[in-house]
């Protein structure tokens, strides 16, 4: 078993000041593209909000802020576990990494469950995407984000399988999967501020 980061992260081990690209360049281009697209959605939301801020503010009050904040804490904690697990995998601590990856899935898996708990009563109360522009943005953007969450959970599942099957894991693959999950977390931080908190 590779016991240190020396062979896995040469940029950092050989020279602490050297720059190290976590994950793979291809994943970073995908991430940057996704950030750009979501960024444009965020700006579009703000522009439309400015045209009818009273309607948006009124609609915003129908959301469940408690579920919003709990989901934020859930994603942050899952990201923390995954970052620690990635570091453990890089250091050859496979058992630690597997425990932390498992915790990531267990905690991150709460997000879709809570999202359904949030959407259900809203839809039952008649707050559908067709009600107004706020709810259209809300369902489309949180729905797109939820798809990212579900894909992220599948990716972490592959990371766990990879780590179980390979005594010398491909750390770049694990890092790339982790970066994707952190991006999902990052996007939610902005969604939470835009839909639940700002006035």
């Amino acid at each position, binding site marked *: 078993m590779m016991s240190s980061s020396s062979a896995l992260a040469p940029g950092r081990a050989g020279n602490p000041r050297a720059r190290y*690209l976590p994950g793979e360049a291809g994943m970073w281009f995908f991430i*940057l593209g996704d950030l750009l697209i979501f960024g444009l959605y965020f*700006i579009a939301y703000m522009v439309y909000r400015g045209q009818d801020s009273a309607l948006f503010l009124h609609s915003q009050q129908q959301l469940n802020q408690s579920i919003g904040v709990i989901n934020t804490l859930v994603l942050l904690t899952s990201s*923390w576990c995954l970052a620690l697990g990635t570091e453990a995998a890089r250091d050859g601590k496979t058992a630690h990494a597997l425990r932390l990856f498992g915790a990531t899935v267990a905690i991150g898996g709460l997000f879709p469950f809570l999202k359904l708990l949030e959407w259900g009563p809203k839809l039952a109360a008649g707050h559908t995407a067709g009600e107004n522009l706020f709810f259209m943005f809300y369902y489309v953007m949180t729905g797109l984000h939820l798809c990212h969450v579900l894909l992220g959970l599948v990716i972490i599942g592959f990371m766990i399988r990879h780590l179980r099957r390979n005594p010398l894991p491909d750390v770049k693959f694990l890092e790339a999967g982790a970066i994707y999950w*952190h991006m999902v977390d990052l996007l939610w931080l902005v969604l939470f501020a835009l839909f639940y908190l700002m006035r």
Partner: protein
Amino acid sequence: MHEYLRNPLTYAWALLMAITLVSWTLGRGHGAEYHLSTAITVGVLGMSMFKALLVIAYFMEVRLAPVWLKRTTYGWAAALLASLLTAYFLGAG
């Protein structure tokens, strides 16, 4: 377990959790107390973008990454905050 507690990732996570609770306290409200507020908007958007930078720097490890990646990701957060605030103030005006 103690090795996790001393890890910079844990400090970043604790700070992220704390800022989330502060921004939630600032932005929560119901009924008559729920009104348009520039101060709350600037506060919560500023905090969310600071949290985004923490996630990028620590969880995504961009603080150790090549300069091009730092500039692109930090630049994304800065440009997004500037654009959101500009759109907000143009809409408010």
